[in-house]
């Protein structure tokens, strides 16, 4: 340094030296993508350029520090600890790295783990907060970047298969600094629109890519949602905070779609099964019933034949009746004739018998008649009043009596009477 007309004038070396002193007090973590990397030909250290989307920062690092980054560090995102510095001969500003971590599994990962612990302690992951996913959703809101692979996958596996599902898209930024505000704005809005399910999804990526879905505010926002929510971020291996707080986690957009349609799928499978059963059962039913009907028809025909046969049977019965008629009638006549003869004969003998009896009775009658008796010498005594006297008693001696003989009568006087003992 020298003084010229009250001015302090520093040499270049001094300026650089001062700058270096100041810069080297700035110790920090930086994050960026390795855009170039080359080794110093003589020394064991590397020149790296780290960049983000606006600026580039030249860095130097010793070779062992870069071991974790593999053969080609270019394109990798790293977090580096170190301090700013200056290469005095060229006045070149640079960052001297003393420690390197891959951005994915180091600092951010630790931050995330811490956040997970915190939210877990608050109960945000508790199963008791998980809402049930409706089995047969009709209105679904898909929160993702419209037109992305995730969007396409989910669509084709939901409405593509079951058009009954109405799918709405809430287009959001799923990556970069605008994605958190975008999510925070959209999620409460779609939550109020009475969807059956809200599905938040994006494809896989690095931890930085998924940063919005590991954001605490976004996680709390998803937790507060009233609509059942499925979150599917990234590939199978990725896991995000958003998934932890969601009502249901899915590994990929397609997996989320499968969860949504699983009940429909089941119903479809059931229906297929029923259809198969219906087919086989109806085949069985129809063949069985057709058979039964045929069988009955045969039996009906048989019955019909029996009736058809009737005239024939009747005429044959008639024939046989005719044949028997002759015998029957002559037989009957013969029998009748015989009976008549028997009747006649018995009547005749009956009559004869009675004629005889009558004859002998007549004879007896003739013999016993009073006329004949008088003829044989008997007489009948009467009183004067012509009453027959049967006893000597009552007849006084001296009374007049009448005596009837066969050829006249006498009038006589009783001169005596004698009674027989």
């Amino acid at each position, binding site marked *: 340094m020298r003084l010229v007309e009250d001015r302090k004038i520093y040499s270049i070396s001094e300026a650089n030296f001062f700058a270096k002193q100041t810069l080297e007090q700035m110790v920090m973590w930086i994050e960026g993508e390795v855009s170039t990397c080359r080794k110093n030909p003589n020394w064991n250290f590397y020149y790296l350029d780290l960049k983000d989307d606006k600026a580039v920062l030249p860095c130097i690092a010793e070779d062992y520090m870069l071991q974790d980054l593999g053969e080609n560090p270019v394109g990798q995102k790293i977090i580096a600890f170190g301090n700013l510095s200056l290469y005095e001969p060229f006045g070149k500003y640079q960052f001297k790295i003393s420690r390197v971590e891959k951005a994915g599994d180091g600092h951010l990962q630790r931050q995330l783990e811490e956040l997970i612990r915190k939210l877990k302690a608050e109960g945000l992951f508790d199963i008791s907060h998980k809402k049930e996913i409706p089995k047969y959703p009709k209105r679904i809101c898909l929160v993702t970047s419209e037109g992305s692979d995730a969007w396409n996958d989910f669509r084709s596996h939901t409405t593509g298969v079951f058009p009954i599902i109405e799918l709405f898209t809430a287009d959001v930024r799923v990556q970069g600094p605008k994605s958190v505000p975008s999510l925070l704005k959209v999620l409460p809005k779609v939550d109020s629109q009475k969807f059956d399910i809200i599905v938040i999804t994006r494809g896989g990526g690095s931890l930085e890519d998924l940063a919005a879905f590991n954001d605490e505010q976004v996680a709390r926002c998803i937790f507060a949602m009233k609509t059942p929510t499925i979150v599917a971020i990234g590939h199978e291996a990725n896991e995000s905070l958003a998934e932890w707080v969601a009502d249901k986690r899915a590994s990929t957009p397609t997996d989320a779609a499968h969860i949504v349609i699983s009940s429909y799928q089941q119903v479809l499978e059931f229906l297929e099964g029923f*259809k198969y059963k219906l087919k086989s059962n109806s085949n069985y039913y129809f063949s069985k019933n057709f058979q039964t009907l045929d069988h*009955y028809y045969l039996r009906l025909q048989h*019955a*019909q034949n029996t009736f058809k046969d009737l005239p024939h049977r009747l005429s044959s019965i008639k024939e046989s009746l005719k044949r028997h008629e002759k015998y029957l009638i002559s037989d009957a006549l013969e029998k009748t004739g015989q009976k008549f003869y028997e009747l006649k004969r018995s009547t005749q003998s009956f009559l004869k018998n009675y004629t005889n009896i009558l004859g002998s009775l007549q004879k007896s009658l003739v013999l016993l008649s009073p006329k004949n008796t008088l003829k044989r010498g008997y007489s009948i005594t009467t009183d004067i009043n012509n009453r027959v006297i049967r006893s000597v008693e009552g007849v006084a001696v001296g009374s007049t009596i009448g005596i009837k003989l066969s050829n006249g009568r006498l009038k006589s006087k009783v001169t005596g009477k004698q009674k027989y003992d």
Partner: protein
Amino acid sequence: MTKDLNFTQALKRLEEIVERLEDPNLDLEVGLKLLEEGVSLHKLCKSKLQQANTKITTILKEDNGNTAESSN
């Protein structure tokens, strides 16, 4: 009366009739009436069954067409 029966009822009645017709002591007039009823029941059953079969075959065919379309 026959027309009002559904398939199962008609089939049952037909079975009854066939059994009664096979009774050797069946009266002629009763038998003829039963035979007439039986034949008309058989006709009814057969036509109902054929209609149903055609309908179901058509439905199952149509449905196959639809599922083929929606799975594409």
